[in-house]
C-alpha cells in the first residue's frame, strides 16, 4: 500500500492536469458526436432549406412587428397633437388611450411575477413518451389560465402579448404564440397583484400542474418576483376582416 501511495505521489502535477484535460476532451468529443447524430440522421435535401426559410421568415416577422409598433407610435403622436384643441377631441383621445390599454396595444409595467419553463432533463424511460418531458402549448396555456385566475391583468410569453385573439399552438414540439415561433425556454410574464403567488398556491389546478409536470416529468418551472414586470405591446394585426362594430343601442 505504501509503495502504491508513494508511486501516486510521485506523479507530477502537470500530468494529473493533463489527464483531467484529456478526460474533458473525451467527454466533449462524445457530446459533440451525440449532438450531431440526429442532424446527420434527419438531414434530408428538403430540410435544410426549410430551416433557412423558417429563420428568414422569423427575421422578417421581427422587422414587420417593429414597423407596426413604430407606425402605431407615429399615429398616436399625430392624434395627440390635436389633443387640447376641443373638449370633444380631448375626450376622444382619452377614450382611445383607454381602448389601446384594454386591447393590449400599449406596453405595461407593474407588480407581477415571471415564470420560466424549460424542458425536463430527466431521462425518458424506455416506455415513456419524449413529448411528456418537453414543455407543451398545453403547459403554457395552463400557466396562463392559472395566472388569469390569480388576478393577472396582462400576460406575455417570450415577449408575445396575450390578447383576445391569441392562440397557443404546438407543432411537433415547437410552440407558436400569436403564430410567432418561440424558442425555449419559455418566459411567462404577468402583471397583477402582489399576492399572485399565494393565490396560485391555493389553486388545485396549479398544484396538480406542478405535481404532474414538475414532480413527475421533471419540467423545470421556476419563478421570479422582480420589483417591476414589463409586458410589451401586442405587435400583431388587428384582424377585423369580417367583424363590424355594432353601434351602441340608444338608452331607453
Amino acid at each position: 500500500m505504501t509503495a502504491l501511495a508513494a508511486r501516486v505521489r510521485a506523479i507530477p502535477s502537470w500530468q494529473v492536469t493533463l489527464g483531467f484535460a484529456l478526460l474533458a476532451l473525451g467527454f466533449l468529443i462524445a457530446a459533440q458526436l451525440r449532438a450531431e447524430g440526429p442532424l446527420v440522421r434527419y438531414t434530408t435535401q428538403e430540410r435544410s432549406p426549410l430551416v433557412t426559410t423558417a429563420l428568414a421568415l422569423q427575421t422578417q416577422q421581427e422587422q414587420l412587428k417593429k414597423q407596426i409598433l413604430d407606425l402605431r407610435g407615429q399615429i398616436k403622436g399625430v392624434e395627440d397633437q390635436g389633443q387640447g384643441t376641443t373638449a370633444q377631441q380631448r375626450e376622444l383621445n382619452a377614450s382611445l388611450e383607454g381602448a389601446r390599454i384594454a386591447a393590449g396595444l400599449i406596453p405595461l409595467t407593474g407588480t407581477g411575477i415571471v415564470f420560466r419553463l424549460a424542458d425536463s432533463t430527466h431521462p425518458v424511460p424506455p416506455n415513456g413518451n419524449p413529448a411528456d418531458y418537453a414543455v407543451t402549448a398545453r403547459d403554457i396555456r395552463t400557466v396562463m389560465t392559472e395566472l388569469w385566475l390569480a388576478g393577472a391583468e396582462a400576460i406575455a410569453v417570450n415577449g408575445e402579448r396575450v390578447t383576445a385573439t391569441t392562440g397557443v399552438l404546438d407543432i411537433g414540439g415547437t410552440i407558436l404564440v400569436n403564430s410567432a415561433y418561440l424558442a425555449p425556454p419559455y418566459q411567462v410574464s404577468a402583471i397583477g397583484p402582489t399576492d399572485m403567488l399565494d393565490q396560485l398556491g391555493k389553486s388545485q389546478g396549479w398544484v396538480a400542474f406542478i405535481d404532474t409536470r414538475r414532480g413527475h416529468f421533471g419540467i423545470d418551472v421556476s419563478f421570479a418576483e422582480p420589483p417591476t414586470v414589463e409586458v410589451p405591446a401586442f405587435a400583431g394585426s388587428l384582424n377585423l376582416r369580417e367583424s363590424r362594430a355594432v353601434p351602441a343601442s340608444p338608452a331607453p
Partner: protein
Amino acid sequence: MRASLRDPRSQLLVSLVALILGVLVVVQIRSQAGDSGLAERSAQDLTLLVANLNTRNDQLRTEVSSLDRQLQALEVGGRNGTSSLNQIRDDLARIRAWAGLDPVAGRGVEITVSGAIDGLALEELINELRNSGSEAIAIEDVRVVAATVVGGGVGALSVDNTALSDRFVVRAIGNPESLVGSLTRVGGMVAQLAATYPDAAVSVEAIDRLVLPATKRDLTPSHGRPRL
C-alpha cells in the same frame, strides 16, 4: 527518464490539448444556441411552421399597409386643417371592437355542443378557434377576451364564473369557410371531441350574420400602468 513540463514537447502537447478543448467548448455552445432547435424538427413540422409564419407575416404586412394609410390620412387632415375627428372615431371603434369592449357583428360559425364535456375540452375548442383566425368569440352571452377562463369538470362547466348547461353555443366571427374547414377536418377539434366524449354531439354551422356582445369585464388595469 521522467517527463517534465519544462520539456518543449510536453508544453506543445498541453497547448494542443487546451486548443482542441477550447474549440470543442465553443462548437458545443454554438451548436446548442444556433438555430433555436429548428434543426431537430422533422420536415413535416418545419413545413407547418413555415406555413404559419407565412400566414402571420402576410397579416402583419396587411396591418403595416393599413396603419400606413391611416397615418397618411391623419397627416393630410392635419396639414389641411380639416378635422381628423372622424378618423380618430374610426380608429377608436376598430380598437374597441377588437378588444371586446363593444359588440361586433359579422359572418362566422356557430358551434352547438349538446352533452357534457369538461373545461379542458372547451378551452381547446376556444384555442382552436383563435388559431384558425377568429376575430371575436363568445360562449353563450360571454364575450371571450384575453383573461377569459373556462373551467370545471364534466357537468360543472363554467366560463368566467357563469355556469353553462350541457347544451351551449359557441359563436365565432371569422371567415366561415376557414373556420368550418379547420374545425371539421380529419383529426380536427370536432373529431377529437367526438372521440373523447362519445355522448356529446357537436355541430358546426356557417352563419351569415352573428352578433356578439361586449365583455362585461373591466379591462382597465389597476396594477399595471403604461410604460413610457
